[in-house]
């Protein structure tokens, strides 16, 4: 998906900075860029995001004294990736906790923005600081603690998040995008499954090289042959 026809939204209240971000994006992504739209106003951006699917949001945290974190929480619950571009470097850690892909400090160079944009297509970064997954539930945003998540199952373009208390939450990001922002203890174990290694009790082998993972909540999920060695080594 990444690499072709990217739709990018910039939310930035300073015209000159927005122009710079836009120019850099065009240079970096070139023909991969499908559309790039700039919003000054947070509300306009929210309206647009609610109606139009995009791939990447480039967000300033301090917009005309509005708190960009409100938008950030909503954004991180959605399907697209978010990169924060802000002068408020003191907010970087907090932003990462909400599962942003990267935090670019102002002023920024072309190379720095390129690194950030490349992370959209990279598979994994070892230094992920996400602590919550934001999910939309009945119109509001619920923050799930990562340590409560047992495993995640792909459900078409969404993901089902299975929690230790037995409940299930639906996340708008697909499994691949979720894995990009989740830390290293979350592993792909199957085409449709990712698991938190903290909750794996044992690997069960069945006839015909079929594998299953036995989890501490009593459930079992399939483990594909391709991932067997990797998981075996980890445990």
């Amino acid at each position, binding site marked *: 998906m990444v690499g072709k026809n990217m739709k990018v939204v910039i939310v930035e*209240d*300073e*015209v*000159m*900075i927005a*122009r*710079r971000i836009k*120019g850099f994006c065009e240079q970096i992504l070139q023909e991969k860029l499908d559309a790039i739209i700039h919003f*000054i*106003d*947070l*509300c*306009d951006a929210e309206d647009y995001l609610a109606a139009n699917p995009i791939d990447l949001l480039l967000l300033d945290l*301090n917009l*005309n*004294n*509005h*708190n960009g974190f409100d938008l950030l929480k909503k954004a991180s619950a959605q399907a697209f990736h978010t990169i924060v571009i802000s*002068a*408020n*470097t003191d907010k970087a850690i907090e932003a990462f906790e909400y599962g942003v892909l990267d935090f670019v*400090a*102002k*002023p*920024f160079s072309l190379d720095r923005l390129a690194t950030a944009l490349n992370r959209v297509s990279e598979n994994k970064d070892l230094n992920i600081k996400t602590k919550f997954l934001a999910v939309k539930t009945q119109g509001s945003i619920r923050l799930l603690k990562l340590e409560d998540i047992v495993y995640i199952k792909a459900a078409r373009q969404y993901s089902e998040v299975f929690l230790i208390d037995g409940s299930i939450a639906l996340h708008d990001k697909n499994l691949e995008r979720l894995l990009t922002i989740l830390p290293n203890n979350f592993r792909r174990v199957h085409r449709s499954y990712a698991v938190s290694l903290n909750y794996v009790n044992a690997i069960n082998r069945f006839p015909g090289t079929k594998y299953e993972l036995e989890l501490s909540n009593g459930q079992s999920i399939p483990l594909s042959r391709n991932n067997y060695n990797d998981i075996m080594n980890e445990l």
Partner: protein
Amino acid sequence: MAMVRTVSNLLLVSCLLLLLSLSLRANSLEATVEEVYFKIGDNESWKQPTLVHQDWRKRSVNNLPADKGTYWARIHINITGSQNNHEAQQALYLSVLGAYEVYWNGYYLARNGVVGTQTESEVPGHIYKVVAIPNELWTHGSHIISLRISNFNSPKQLREKYFNVFVGPLDEVNREFYSANLLPLFILGALIIVGLYFLQVYLVTLKQASVIIFSVLCFTISLLLIAETWKIYFGYTYDWHYVRLVIIELLTLAIAVLLPTFFIFNFKMKFKLAWLTASGLVVLSSYFLSHGYDVKSANLLSASFLISILIVSAALINKKQGASLLLCALIAITVFSIIFPFSFHDKYFVPSFTLFIGFVLNSLTLQMKQTQVERDQATLTSAHLEIALLRKNIQPHFVLNTLTSIEQWIDESPKTAIKFIHALAAEFRVLNTISNEKQICLQQEIALCESHIEIMSYRKDKTFVLKAINIDPNQWIPPAIVHTLLENALSHNNYIECEVVFTLEQIKDPDKGITTLLLNSPIQRNRKPTQGTGTGFKYICARLKESYGDNWRFENEELNDTWIAKVTIPLKT
């Protein structure tokens, strides 16, 4: 515990001493002054105890000779009790306005000054005299003490009234005198030091009316003490007695006026003039309405205490610090002075007043502490405001965003980038000159605002304009007031038009001595209500309060599509 023990020991010792003195007295001879007679004229034979004195006048109030001249007085005393082997030396205490010779049963005993037949030949006597009575004359029964007196130097006001005499053991007469007056001497020293201290406090640090009034009050009481005790420590001839009484009276009047005045200023009372007039009237009427020196003094002080109680009560109602303690002390001292009007003035006035001064001292010290705390607070606030002013424009968020914009201008149009950098430098330069000022002139403020909106024009790639109407460039204003308002307007609006005009107008009201600055900003709101107006407005209010106390107003309102901010401050200053 130790305290209680000390007190009980003291009580025990005093009881024993009292019993002892009573038992001694029961065993010795005691004299009582029975009658005093006098006759105008001069005759050597009038000293004889056998003289028949039918035509002599009996001494009563105001009936001593009204004219200057020579007269004789006969004092009848009766000595009772039983003879004792260790009879104490007895003495005669005399305080008479004149020069006189003293005879005991016709025998010459002593003289005070030289009795004369006219003003020139008289040598005035000491105001009082203690005459030791030889033991052989001190016998059971009636005795006649004769005085030959000339009063050529006596003041008219006292001539008919003043005549004091009593008889007692010499030791006791002396002891009563000196021990009773040792305490006032200590107090005198303390009062002078306290008075000097507060005088210095007033001159050097705390220019408050209450401080200097308190200092003057201490000195006045010291002078009163000196005047009161002068008789004993230094003495004077009888012709000075009236002068001393007048001095005492005037000093008492001064104290009676100063005391309520001190409270009025100390508690920073509202309606000062009304309070001052009322207390002045009360004290002065008690001065003019009462007669006799002791009565006048007693009434003056009572009136002063009563009006002071009113003032301190009003202060207490207004919850002034330290009022309750002072009120208790005042009520106690007043009740005491009403119950014992004369002995109060003679014996208890100075000690109780000193105690009272202690309370006042405490109250003043608390106030000084309060003032110090307020002053420190104000200094701290000023320091905070200075930092807040600097932070506005060197806060990382502002600088980093500005730098990012400059980068873009360097790529797009290096010439504009340079202008942008110059605008930024101009703002920093103005900030540098004003950052430690509490007030700047409006011209500087506008220069600051212009460089700020120029920076914002480059950042937002729009044209922001500040139009100044009727501006007096020399009007004083705390720094960055208009700047903060502009900043507020710029950060809470999303201006879409290419040109946005802000207007700053000054309206003067010379009659009231005030001026109003009006800043009109167009509104093009974000759809969401914005946050963060708090710190800017807090800065403005804190700055105005720092410069003008309560003498300012700051209002803002939205009218149609304009946000109007109004700052009203004193004209020029």
